[in-house]
C-alpha cells in the first residue's frame, strides 16, 4: 500500500500505481513499501507509474490482471504507457503526437 495520496494501488498484486491527481516532473513519490522515487516527467490524471522496477518481458498487472507486457526495462516510479507496454492481443493505435510521451 502506498500512503501517497496522489497514487492508488488498485490490487495488491499490481506492479503499477494509478495517478489520481496530476504529477509534475521532479515531484517526490512514495511508491509504498519504503520505496520512493521522483517523477521523471509531468504525468496526467489516471496514467500509470511502475510500483517497482519492471524488467522487459514482464507482465504488467493492473486490477490484479495482466494488461500487456513490458517492452523495455522500466525503473521504479517511471511512467508506464504505450512506449514501454504492449498488448498481448491487438496493437494499440495512437496519434503520432501521443507516441511515447502522453503528458
Amino acid at each position, binding site marked *: 500500500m502506498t500512503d501517497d495520496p496522489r497514487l*492508488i494501488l*488498485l490490487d495488491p498484486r499490481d506492479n503499477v500505481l*494509478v*495517478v*489520481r491527481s496530476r504529477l509534475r516532473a521532479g515531484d517526490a513519490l512514495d511508491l509504498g513499501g519504503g520505496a520512493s522515487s521522483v517523477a521523471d516527467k509531468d504525468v*496526467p*490524471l*489516471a*496514467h*500509470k507509474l511502475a510500483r517497482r522496477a519492471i524488467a522487459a518481458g514482464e507482465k*504488467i498487472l*493492473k*486490477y490484479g*490482471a*495482466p*494488461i*500487456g507486457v513490458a517492452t523495455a526495462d522500466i525503473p521504479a516510479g517511471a511512467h*508506464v*504507457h*504505450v512506449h514501454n*507496454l*504492449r*498488448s*498481448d*492481443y*491487438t*496493437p*494499440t*493505435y*495512437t*496519434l503520432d503526437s*501521443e507516441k511515447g510521451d*502522453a503528458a
Partner: protein
Amino acid sequence: MTMQGWLRSDGRKGIRNVVAVAYLVECAHHVAREIALPLREEGVHVIGFPGCYPNDYAQRMMEGLCTHPNVGAVLLVSLGCESFNKYGLERVIRASGRPVKTLTIQATGGTRASIAEGRAWVAERKAELDAMPTVEMRVDELVVGTVCGGSDGTSGITGNPAAGRAFDLLVKAGAACIFEETGELIGCEHIMASRAITPALGLVLEESVAKAAKYYATLGYGSFAAGNADGGLSTIEEKSMGAYAKSGASPISGLLKPGDVPPRGGLYLLDVVPDGEVRFGFPNINDNAEIAELIACGAHAVYFVTGRGSVVGSAISPVVKICANPETHRRMSDDMDVNAGRILEGAATLDEVGREIFDLTVGLGRGGRTRSEELGHQEFILTYKSFEPIGPSCLPAVA
C-alpha cells in the same frame, strides 16, 4: 418507488411515448428529418437505415426499435425503389397495436408533398399519444443497458464500477440489465465466464469474446481510439478490465444478440460482433451503434460512462451520462448527469454514486429527463451486419 409508464399490447411499458419517423434508405432521410423537425423537442424522433440493399440484421433492428416500449407510433418514410422490406416492417408494427403509416415519396409527389403529409400525420398521432393515460410501472419492468465511450484511465476506477453498483441494485430489484461490447472484454473472458449461471453459458460467453478478438485482429485495430491512450489507457486488455467493471457483480443470466429482448430480470451480455467471416467492417463504428443495439433489445434507458467526455444522447431512450473524470466534469458539467469523478477525489464512495445512478434511473420514469434529452441529442446510426440466431445455451432456463 413506482414509476409511470405507457402500457403496450405485448405487456411491456414505456417510460417515454415517442413518435418514431423512420427513413428506410438514405434517400428518404432528409424528408424524414423535415417531417420530425417541428415536433423534434416534443418527442418525435428520427431513426432509419441508410442502405439500399436489404440486410436481415437491419430489418430485425428496425422491428425491435419500432416496437420498443418507449415508442407509441411510427411513420415509415420510403423513397419507393429501395430494397428494405417496408411491408414486413409495417406488418410487425401494426401487429403490435401501434398506429403506423408508410409514406412513399415517389407516390406522394416528391419532397414538399411528403413533408406536408408526414407532418400532418405525426401531429395527429402526437396529440393522441399525449392524451394516452399512464399506468403504474415497477422497477422489475425496467430494462437498462450500459456502454462506455471516450474512456480513459478514470473510467475503470470510478464511472464503470459505479454503473456496476447501480446494475447490482437494479438486478436485485428484478430489472433486466445488459452490458456489452465483447471487443472491449478481451482479456476478461475467463473471469466473466466464471459468473455464468450454467457452465454451458460460460463457454458461450468465452466464445463470444474469442470471436471479437478474431474479428478485430482481422481488421487490424482493437476497439481502442487514440484518445483512450491520451487518457492513460495503454492496451485493449487494460481498457477491457475497466469496461468489464460496468457489469457489476451479479451472476450472468444469458447472452443476447441485437434485437433479443431479455426474457426476465437479471444480467445479460449483448454480443455485438457479427457472426461468420469478417464482411462489413468494424462491428461498432462508434458508440451510438452500440446504444441503438441496446435499445433494440428493449433498453428503456442506457448508461453511458465517459472519461474523456462524450456529449451524445439517443433517439427513443434516454442516455444517462456518467462522467468518470473530475477534470472532464469541471469542463463539461452541462452535459453530465452524474459526477463519478468525485470518487477519485475522495468526495463520494462507489456505493453512494451507484445509488445516485439507480435513483436517477427510477426518476426517469417519474418525469425526470437527462441532460442529453434537455440538450436535444437524438443521435442514431444503423449499418450492415450479419448474425446467426442465439443458440440453446445462451438463455438457460431458471431452475
